């Protein structure tokens, strides 16, 4: 009997609390160790550039420590050593899923410092809206397609990839490159739209409308997709605002904030579009908000096709436009102006300014400090992905490891923009 007593005493010690008999079934098991797992930099769901050190109790995440910075390519240091026009290729690679919007953002920041904000020819503004909305479509198509693939819906990924290819072809015809366009210039755009862009865009949009309906039929009421997305990674409205969330993630929580409408820039006041809002703020709402925004982009593009005027594609301000080629080769003044413009870059008067546009993930801003020379003194990029990643720690708390995948898919954290 003695050892029986010891045995119950040992169990009492181990469980530490109540007597063994009145413990429920689940409590009788010994508390398991917490296991730390690396969801490391090279992981398909982490877009290759984030490492999370997960402390898990079985499958449930107890603590998470997120390490960004695996794609820190020093945008600020590089742009301090480049002229204003040479910074455009760097901005392409910030949010490389919607590169045109970064270009427009940087151009607007420099134009704001030069005081050219409202003085651009109308055609330039319309071209910028067209290429930004097309870029926003490629952003949402890639985001929804990739996160659907990570949840197993490989067909939706291939459908959206096919439609993204159509957009890439058209963007390549416009700017010359599929992804890294560097098409916008300070005070205008590099060259005019190709001749048959109108017909191509209409053809492309009609096909994409069909693809979006197909994928909506596939995903919206798909039991597996909804169970994996609904109720996962929910965020309240107050948390969204306090943590600086913007774009589709904030709109999914019901925060009615869209830079194109609240701080209208370019020709957005002349275009009507509505801003979709979610209610619960979970992954499923973010998905629905992005699908709705895709349709709004198509609607904007169709309006732009009708309303775009003719005219020059560069403001005729000598500070930031190149002289026409005929003058450059004939007169020495244009030759010098051409040379100075290329070598020294656009001379921006000294001062500091912050301009922001509605990027694929929300408010994308550039804080520029200029010192009068052709090179920016400081070029800070306010990247929405970095802000959204800081909320990811709170979102994945108390979820399963498998839920990290849809949350990261819907946050649409782009490495280049997040780590700058």
């Amino acid at each position, binding site marked *: 009997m003695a050892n029986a007593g010891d045995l119950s005493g040992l169990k009492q010690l181990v469980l530490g609390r109540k007597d063994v008999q009145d413990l429920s079934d689940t409590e009788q098991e010994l508390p398991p160790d917490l296991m730390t797992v690396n969801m490391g930099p090279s992981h398909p769901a982490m877009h290759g550039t984030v490492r999370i050190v997960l402390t898990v109790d079985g499958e449930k995440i107890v603590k998470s420590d997120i390490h960004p*910075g695996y794609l820190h390519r020093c945008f*600020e240091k590089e742009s301090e050593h480049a002229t204003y026009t040479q910074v455009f290729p760097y901005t392409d690679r910030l949010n490389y899923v919607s590169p045109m919007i970064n270009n427009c953002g940087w151009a607007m920041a420099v134009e704001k410092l030069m005081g050219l904000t409202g003085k651009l020819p109308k055609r330039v503004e319309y071209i910028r809206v067209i290429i930004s909305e097309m870029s926003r479509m490629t952003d949402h198509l890639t985001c929804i397609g990739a996160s659907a693939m990570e949840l197993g819906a490989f067909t939706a990924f291939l459908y959206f990839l096919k439609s993204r290819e159509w957009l890439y072809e058209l963007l390549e015809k416009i700017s010359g490159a599929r992804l890294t366009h560097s098409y916008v210039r300070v005070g205008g755009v590099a060259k005019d739209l190709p001749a048959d862009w109108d017909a191509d865009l209409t053809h492309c949009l009609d096909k994409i409308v069909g693809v979006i309906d197909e994928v909506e039929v596939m995903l919206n009421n798909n039991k597996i997709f909804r169970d994996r997305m609904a109720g996962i990674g929910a965020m309240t409205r107050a948390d969204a605002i306090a*943590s600086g969330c913007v774009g589709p993630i904030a709109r999914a929580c019901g925060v009615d904030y869209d830079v194109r409408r609240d701080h209208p820039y370019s020709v957005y006041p002349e275009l009507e579009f509505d801003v979709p809002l979610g209610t619960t703020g979970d992954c499923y709402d973010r998905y629905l908000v992005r699908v709705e925004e895709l349709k709004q982009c198509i609607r904007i593009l169709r309006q732009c096709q009708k309303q775009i005027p003719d005219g020059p594609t560069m403001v005729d301000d000598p500070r930031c436009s190149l002289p026409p080629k005929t003058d450059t080769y004939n007169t020495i003044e244009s030759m010098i102006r051409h040379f100075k413009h290329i070598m020294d870059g656009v001379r921006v008067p000294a001062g500091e300014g912050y301009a922001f546009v509605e990027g694929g993930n929300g408010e994308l801003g550039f804080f520029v400090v200029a010192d*009068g*020379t052709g090179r920016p003194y400081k070029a800070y990029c306010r990247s929405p992905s*970095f802000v959204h990643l*800081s909320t990811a720690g709170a979102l994945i708390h108390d979820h399963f490891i498998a839920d990290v995948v849809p949350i990261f898919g819907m946050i649409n954290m782009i490495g280049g923009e997040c780590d700058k």
Partner: protein
Amino acid sequence: MSKKVLDALTAKFPSAIVRTASANGDEIAWIKRDDLLAVAKWLRDDPAMAFDAPVFCTCIDWLDWKPQHRPPSEAWNETKPRFTVCYQLRSVAHKHRIRLEIELPENDARCASLAELWSAFNWQERETFDMYGIKFDNHPDLRRIYLYEEFVGYPLRKDYPKEKRQPLVRRDDLPINPIKGQHAPKLEGNK
């Protein structure tokens, strides 16, 4: 429309405001370092201001700053503060924005942390510390966010050279191996 934000701010905290400006469409207020927390809390909680959404936090390093076409007095010299920490805030309700700027001397680059007031600044202050070396007091966990712990120095300061690499790992048969700092042994033909 946001001009009244600056007026209300100067009315409320006349001693804390060094100067204000409205340049390039932004409202800027230079704040003394010690009153930053009070001003920020008021800006967030006051219903007329309601700055509930943070936008960004960064720092400007003014080392040998010489603006062109400007009087030489504006150029930087040792007596002037070297760093300026900038907090940009916006209000969702009133749709107005303000940028708080705090000037910090070079030797004592310390600033109060606003991470408790707006959770977004937690990571953005870590980024500013990582890049410029500004120490934020009572920040929850101030450590490098982009670079690895073994990195020495603050890369975005003007005196840090752009291409000064501090490599973690290299192949051992590299012709010039920065880690071992010598040329790899010449492969004199395998026996």
